[in-house]
């Protein structure tokens, strides 16, 4: 019987690297200090490839592939930082900014926001698309937390952490395309949710100021995300 090799060797940006076969391009890039932008992926949660910011070029393929859900393969030659990729990434981010109402200056997460940091890192100074200015709700019915749909980018981290880590599955997504939004229970006010355990994990994994603690003023919402890898590691050890 042929032995399947467990380690794959590949090139990322011309560097010879290796990864275990179950690892993704993003895993290997991260282990080797190669920056690949992402907003939906998070260490400790399953990957969904929702934000498309981690798209990379693979030699021999016309399609760009998301690094977070593409497994490494033997002999792969990956480029993570071409001009074409940079342009696409900026475009994706700009579209995220136009889709809802992101006003950094008065946001609870100003200065501590993953999307804002990424925009700065990618050198976005202007948005080239017209803003949509949709009218989105703020649900402040929960005793301790608030969801401001104006700032939600539909990364679904809240949905995954609630389901996979907390096990409550309070959050989900309803609607399709531009109509999609995250909901609690069956689209009921968060405050009357029967499944929410008020654990706050969703708030802390949210990359923007969409989910925040009540009583936080502008720029005061600092998110603590270190808990997640430890939590998953401990669970695995207990198994």
């Amino acid at each position, binding site marked *: 019987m042929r032995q399947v090799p467990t380690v794959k060797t590949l090139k990322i940006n011309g560097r010879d690297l290796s990864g275990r076969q179950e690892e993704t391009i993003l895993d290997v890039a991260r282990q080797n200090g190669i920056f690949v932008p992402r907003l939906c992926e998070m260490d400790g949660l399953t990957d969904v490839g929702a934000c498309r910011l981690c798209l990379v070029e693979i030699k021999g393929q016309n399609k760009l592939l998301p690094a977070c859900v593409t497994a490494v393969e033997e002999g792969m030659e990956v480029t993570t930082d071409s001009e074409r990729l940079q342009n696409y990434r900026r475009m994706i981010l700009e579209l995220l900014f136009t889709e809802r109402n992101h006003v950094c*200056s*008065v946001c*609870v997460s*100003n200065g501590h926001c993953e999307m804002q940091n990424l925009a700065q890192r990618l050198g976005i100074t202007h948005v080239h698309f017209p803003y949509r200015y949709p009218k989105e*709700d*703020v649900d*402040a*019915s929960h005793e301790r937390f*608030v969801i*401001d749909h104006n700032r939600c980018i539909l990364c679904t981290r809240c949905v995954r952490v609630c389901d996979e880590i907390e096990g409550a599955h309070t959050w989900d997504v309803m609607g399709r395309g531009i109509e999609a939004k995250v909901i609690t229970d069956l689209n009921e006010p968060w*405050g009357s949710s029967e499944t929410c355990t008020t654990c706050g994990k969703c708030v802390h994994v949210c990359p923007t100021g969409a989910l925040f603690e*009540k*009583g*936080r*003023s*502008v*720029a*005061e919402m600092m998110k603590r995300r270190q808990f997640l890898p430890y939590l998953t590691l401990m669970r695995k050890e207990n198994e």
Partner: protein
Amino acid sequence: MKQESTIVIDPVTRIEGHSKITLHLNEDGRVEDARFHVTQFRGFEKLCEGRPFYEMPSLMARICGICPVSHLIASAKACDSLLAVRIPPTADKLRRIFGLAQVTQSHALSLFHLSSPDLLFGMDADPAKSNIFGVAEANRELALDGIRLRQFGQKIIERLGGKRIHPAWVVPGGVSEPLSEANRDAILQSLPEALAIAERTLEWFKGTMERFREEISTFGNFPSMFMGIVKKDNGLTFYGGKLRIVDASRHVVADDLDPTQYDDYIGEKVEPWSYLKSTYYKPKGFPDGVYRVGPLARLNVADRCGTPRADQELAEFHELQRTAVLSSFHYHHARLIEILYCIERLEQLLNDPEILSKQVRAVARPNALEGVGACEAPRGTLFHHYKIDEHGLIRWVNLIIATGHNNLAMNRSVLQVAKHFVHGSRLTPGMLNRVEAVIRCYDPCLSCSTHAWGQMPLRIQLISPKGEVLDEVARA
């Protein structure tokens, strides 16, 4: 041929915001009526609806880049009353320091950057050099003093709030960070230079007053009431206290008014020709309930400043007229005395042993569904009034900005100046500038008060009884 006409000044220059002035002439070519139109619209009251009230101080600060601190303070005070908390004493004092620094820099901007060309070169000077750069060429020290004084105030704001414009440091329940010893000491070190600038500018200003006799007697020199917040001992304050209204003879019309009950005694009226609301004192009705706010009003209302040098100057100021000081030209003078007061008061507050306390924020959930915050902004009394739902989301907002209180008075002042200086269907730059200069006395902040949209051009139109534009002067 004799006919009625209208002169339009559009835009009014060297003020904050967008406006125009129309002068209506009668058949003899004399000014019959004058209107100060605020041509911009913003709508902050509406766009805040649905937002968590914790965002309000920072949202409201965006109303203005010159006096964001006043909006922060009034807004935070309204939010304090939604929380129904008494904020820690140190937070109260730190907010006062923040406010005083801002009054200083804002007054410096008004006096040096916007009005000093009129004072230095006279009202008939060439418009091309009537700006801060012209001042810098003609009197370098004066211009530098203005820039330094503004920097002084802005630096204090930065040291406390982290940045000079739109700091998010003032929050519902207090402030977000205590003052560090290093910052306290650095601010204290900057006081002597600022005080010296204030002193020499006041001297210089008093020396120029003689040249402006005609303007003093016609620049909004009419009887009106004056309103301002005073301390319990009727002393000058910017942060909070009770409202006091005096008449043209400085007799008290109303005292001990609770600013949070403003709706009981202040009426608001909207005119179809301006985006700026006019307020009036309800018991006297509209338009007889006209009153003025801001530096001139505060010094007419207050019995004392409470700091030695400012008190000396206040006594001298009260001697200017036997009655209340009525001429709006003296807004400039009052502004300089207030700068002096701010610097002296800053020193008192910074030397307070409590000022470095780490307890600077009260934490609570919303305990009231309605809250009003009031303070004295550089340009006058500022009210923020919010209603929230049980989850803390804003349902309704009303703002009364200082410039709105002065709207009626500004209109009257423009009319008075125009009647005195404008004749016939031809306009000279000197006439035009005087009509604008009287507006500058009030230092209106139109972007604040209308919540701004559009460009800032001044146009004066001269309109005939048939509606023909006879003459028009425009500045692009």
